[in-house]
């Protein structure tokens, strides 16, 4: 662990890094066509969800295969608020954070006693069961038809400022500020006292508890923070067009985990990289298969195959993900 820094310094650095990310994505979007602008919006949205895993697994050693279900909680909260109470989308997003944090509290209370594979399995069952609630109580949650919700149109002041804004650009402008704020929050958290407490619990529960850390309470707090992020991501993700069970399948949870693992479970930079990979991989594969003229019977399964292989190879060859690989290279250069 590097030397202790004051909160002020850390806050300053987190702000700077979040701004770098924000500006970088914006600059990138100017070079991109509409489709890739939308993919950047996807990256911004999913990054928030991947960060929720980085926070949970990387900082506390707990693994959740059910982040997609928490995203559904956030998505449904926001959609219900907007369609039933007709409040603004922005307010709904903020309230979705609170609802999913509350959900995270209950989840944490249940999960604080669980470790490793117990938690993985329980959250996997949750990923399956939560979306089925929407079908079970379909008069309230509108079954698998769900809620058609979207970002609407950009406000006039923005169009006056920037000229005409396409649907894809607007998606990015909605998601990106939230992504930057989440990045800021996670950077801050992981460098403060509580972040160090979490890592102590992760590395050795016995030692941490001897040092006077309340293990159960720490785990619950991690769950609350992680769920808040996942819920926000789920709300933004749902407002791309639809909040319904089919938007939050079990595979979504696994895809997010893949992004976190590929990047390196402990690295926030890795989370960004991993998100880029899972979002752009299908497009890269599409180009490669077109170039190689692979038959459709093979090419349609390549994205799933590559995701699985990447996950496997990362874990076997370099469990610390791409961030670990980068650090390794830097170390070699130093010596």
């Amino acid at each position: 662990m590097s030397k202790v820094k004051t909160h002020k310094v850390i806050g300053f650095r987190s702000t700077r890094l979040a701004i770098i990310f924000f500006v970088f994505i914006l600059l990138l979007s100017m070079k991109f066509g509409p489709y890739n602008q939308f993919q950047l919006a996807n990256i911004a949205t999913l990054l928030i969800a991947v960060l929720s895993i980085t926070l949970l697994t990387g900082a506390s050693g707990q693994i959740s295969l059910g982040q997609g279900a928490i995203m559904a909680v956030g998505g449904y909260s926001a959609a219900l608020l907007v369609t039933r109470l007709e409040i603004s989308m922005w307010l709904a997003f903020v309230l979705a954070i609170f609802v999913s944090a509350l959900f995270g509290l209950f989840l944490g209370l249940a999960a604080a006693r669980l470790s490793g594979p117990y938690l993985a399995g329980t959250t996997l069952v949750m990923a399956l069961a939560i979306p089925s609630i929407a079908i079970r109580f379909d008069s309230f949650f509108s079954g698998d038809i769900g809620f058609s919700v979207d970002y609407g149109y950009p406000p006039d002041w923005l169009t006056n400022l920037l000229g005409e804004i396409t649907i894809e650009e607007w998606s990015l402008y909605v998601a990106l500020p939230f992504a930057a704020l989440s990045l800021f929050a996670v950077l801050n958290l992981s460098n403060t006292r509580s972040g160090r407490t979490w890592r102590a619990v992760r590395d050795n529960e016995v030692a941490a508890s001897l040092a006077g850390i309340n293990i159960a309470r720490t785990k619950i707090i991690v769950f609350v923070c992680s769920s808040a992020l996942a819920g926000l991501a789920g709300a933004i993700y749902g407002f791309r067009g639809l909040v319904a069970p089919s938007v939050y399948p079990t595979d979504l949870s696994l895809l997010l985990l893949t992004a976190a693992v590929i990047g390196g479970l402990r690295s926030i930079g890795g989370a960004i990289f991993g998100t880029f990979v899972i979002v752009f991989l299908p497009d890269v594969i599409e180009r490669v298969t077109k170039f190689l003229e692979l038959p459709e019977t093979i090419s349609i399964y390549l994205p799933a195959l590559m995701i699985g292989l990447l996950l496997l190879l990362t874990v076997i060859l370099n469990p610390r993900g791409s961030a670990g690989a980068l650090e390794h290279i830097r170390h070699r250069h130093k010596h």
Partner: protein
Amino acid sequence: MNLRKPLILTVVASALVGSLVMNGISATAASVPGVSKSQIVLGMQLPQTGGASPGYNKIDDAARAYFDYVNSKGGVNGRNIKLVVKDDEYKAGRTITTARELINNDKIFAFFGSVGTQTHLSVVKDINRRGIPDLFVNSGYSGFYTDPKKYPNTFGGLGTYTVEAKILGKYLKEKYPDKKIGILWQSDDFGRNALAGLAASGLKFEARKTSASFVAGTHGSIGLGTQIGQLKANGVDIVIIAAVSSATAVAYATAAALAYKPTKWAVISVGADATTFQTILGARGTAPATSAALLAGTITASHAPAAGDADDEYIKAFKKINDDFNNGADKRWDNNVLQGMNIAYLATSALLGVGKKLTRPKLVSYLKKNGSKLSSAAFSPIGYSGTTHEAFTGFWLGEYDASLVLKPIDGTRVVYTTDSANGPVTVSNYKRPAIAADALPRVG
């Protein structure tokens, strides 16, 4: 934890990934997206992989085969039709992204034949607000079509589940007034729409007695034993099935295992594909003769000719095109292939009808005005009008014979028609136009 340097390095690495897929300089914008002098580009989204793909993954290959045939005959007004297909794995989250890819990268002129209710729900609003034609959606969910003010550019490619269930329900209620009628349905939008249609025809079911449901997709894990056992225990004589074909096969096999022989099976057409039925039971070791005997006598409804009706002129022509032009992994002739060919035929005639000066608004207003006059292989009238965008508003009822060809009940084909609301079921007097010798549609 030193975060700063890895983060900056990551950002650079990410940029590399990003630039890998960056678009080149975008092509000079044509006046109409997806239409050039020599080509019309259509886009289709469907599950090619994943749990929901079996069966449906044949529709795109069949449609492409028909378009390739049209292209081999000179195309539509000198333009070839190109069909770009995206696999959305039946995940609505993915559909949103693939739709944007079709719109922005493949620059399609129109969406065509999208498969799936839930997946299409996630994009239908966006497609309509962009003014892109949304042709012949492969979903029987009436919510897409009955309010054209909501989705002005969306047109159906199937009959709605409600219309079909109303027609089937009325028939069963009148034909078997003294029998106990029950249902096995999958608890999703399709099953619920079917229930609503049956209710509109006066057929109501009692939970845990005459109504048995299962979670869509779980016939493969939890099985249907308890549901079928429940129908049997309650002495249900007539079993209606609202489920996909693979689940229908499991249901019949389970019933046979439990020595349950209802007087009559009636299957909503989605789950009544004889080929899927026999293939699945065949691989389970059931001899074709035995599985045929199981399905024989089953009542189902159809807007199109029976896939097994080798004498039908449309089937003959489409089968030949399927043999010559289909390059898909599985081109075995069945209802899915027929459906893919038929909506491609319909699309071709619509594009022909608009004429050489093809634009998006022109296509939409042509379909509103003249869509009901277009022809297809279906025996059903086409519903497109200013007030509804339902495709096939009529169904005929048939019974599988011993060789699994769907034959009209009592020998003569009667097409019934109704709406997706509470309107009455009436007999349609629609006459299907003959197919031309070259199997190309004629307009006007």
